[in-house]
């Protein structure tokens, strides 16, 4: 089977320091790969580099058979909806001056050249699937809780039917019970749409429940681990 995304010898330097170097791994369709590391280990930067939101210093990322760094700007834009990202801080991941229904329906409305209200009406099934009511989308992002925004984010992302989602600590700002809800929802949607996911977190417990394989970033080097190996690796970190 051809991998959906393969990262080959990625490295990134910032100023004088190395953020990460020699990172290579592959992601198959529908699979969840974890990226684990301490704060400051560069896992968020790596996640952003993988979908081309930040420039790599070296190495290449091949997504669906195409090297994303070599694509022309317009071809890359066509490819972009297939790779989406969920961010850590729900409070600022939606445009603070836009009503949620505008934010959520904007990408699809742009790509399909339709009116936003129309697109929004077509998103109603998805909105129900993530457990929100359409009237909640009349709010500004700051009027909703973190969990609700992450759900709305899910609507925005899945409206583009992506093949890969990079989730950058999507629940670290959320409460325990909401965290479980969001993670299960992510899993469920992923299964239903056969979406691959790169899951970034520093919580080893969540990693073990969410991921199929886990890459560990630490002190500048990168190792890919199977679940049981990872469980062994993190026992010393746990209490």
């Amino acid at each position: 089977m051809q991998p959906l995304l393969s990262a080959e010898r990625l490295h990134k330097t910032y100023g004088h320091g190395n953020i990460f170097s020699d990172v290579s791994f592959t992601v198959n369709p529908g699979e969840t790969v974890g990226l684990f590391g301490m704060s400051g280990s560069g896992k968020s930067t790596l996640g952003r580099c993988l979908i081309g939101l930040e420039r790599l210093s070296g190495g290449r990322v091949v997504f669906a058979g195409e090297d994303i760094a070599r694509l022309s700007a317009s071809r890359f834009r066509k490819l972009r909806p297939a790779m989406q990202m969920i961010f850590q801080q729900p409070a600022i991941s939606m445009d603070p001056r836009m009503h949620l229904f505008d934010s959520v329906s904007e990408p699809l409305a742009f790509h399909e050249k339709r009116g936003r209200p129309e697109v929004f009406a077509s998103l109603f099934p998805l909105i129900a699937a993530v457990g929100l009511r359409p009237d909640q989308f009349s709010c500004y992002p700051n009027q909703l809780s973190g969990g609700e925004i992450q759900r709305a984010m899910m609507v925005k992302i899945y409206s583009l039917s992506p093949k890969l989602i990079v989730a950058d600590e999507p629940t670290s700002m959320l409460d325990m019970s909401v965290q479980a809800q969001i993670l299960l929802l992510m899993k469920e949607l992923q299964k239903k749409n056969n979406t691959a996911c790169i899951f970034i977190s520093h919580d080893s417990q969540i990693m073990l429940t969410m991921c199929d394989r886990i890459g560990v970033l630490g002190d500048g080097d990168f190792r890919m681990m199977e679940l049981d190996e990872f469980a062994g690796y993190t026992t010393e970190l746990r209490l």
Partner: protein
Amino acid sequence: MSEAAVRHRVRVWCASVRGTDWYYRLKQRPSLQVVFVLLAIILTAAVFSPIAAPQDPAATCLYEKNQWMSTEHWFGTDYLGRDLFSRVLCGLQTSMVVAVTTIAITFVAGAAVGSYAGYNGGWAGTCIARIIDVFLAFPSIILALALVTLLGSGVLNMILVLSVVQWASFARLMRGQVLAEKNAEYVLSAQAAGLPNWWILVKHLLPNCIMPVVVLATMDLGHTILTISTLSFLGLGLPPSIPEWGFMIHAGLGDMRTAPLNVIVPGLAITFVTLLFNLAGEGIRDITDPHMDVEGSL
């Protein structure tokens, strides 16, 4: 309900949600409503001042010079016996024409240059940043003085001078705003969704960055009126034939002891108009910010 009907209802609902919030926040603030009404009156007065003035602002009458308030001359007369009220009213028009045109020019130029320099960065962005720095290195009136020396007096020249002096502060603010916002996660999210750069700049960055610039523009309207009057107080910028508050104060200095109204009234006019713009600026900042608590004060 048919699908078309659902769509229609959603469209109506979307439009109603979008339209209400500024209005709602304005309704919470009665004092701000008063400010806006007064501003509207001032602007109307500025447009119609030559017609509305009770007497010819240029009609001299030496027998009636330096008079105190009376029913005939509400604010008294100046050293040539001209009606002070009419002159203050016409001075309003002069100030407003110059100030509004200047701010319109500087706002557009500053926002365009600033957002370009902020979003694109790189070599051109750095260059623009340096040029902005140079303009800001001149204390504003000093630069205006130098330019007035070059261009001479006149309404158009005044607008040109003030625009050259003020565009840099707009550009700097806009650049700073864009720089601060362009790495925000919602911008990244829009990039990830495959939206083109111009779209992100226009639909996301500008709306999120422009409000402080609008507030600055409103407050700078007041500030520009101060600068105009200062320049014409120094006898520069506008020809003496055009009634202008600063020049009126200058002309009243000689008879200040016997006819204090000649310096008090135009000064109060400047203060009042500037005050209104300052209050309106603060008010706009409050009502356009979704983060702002509705219980905020004026």
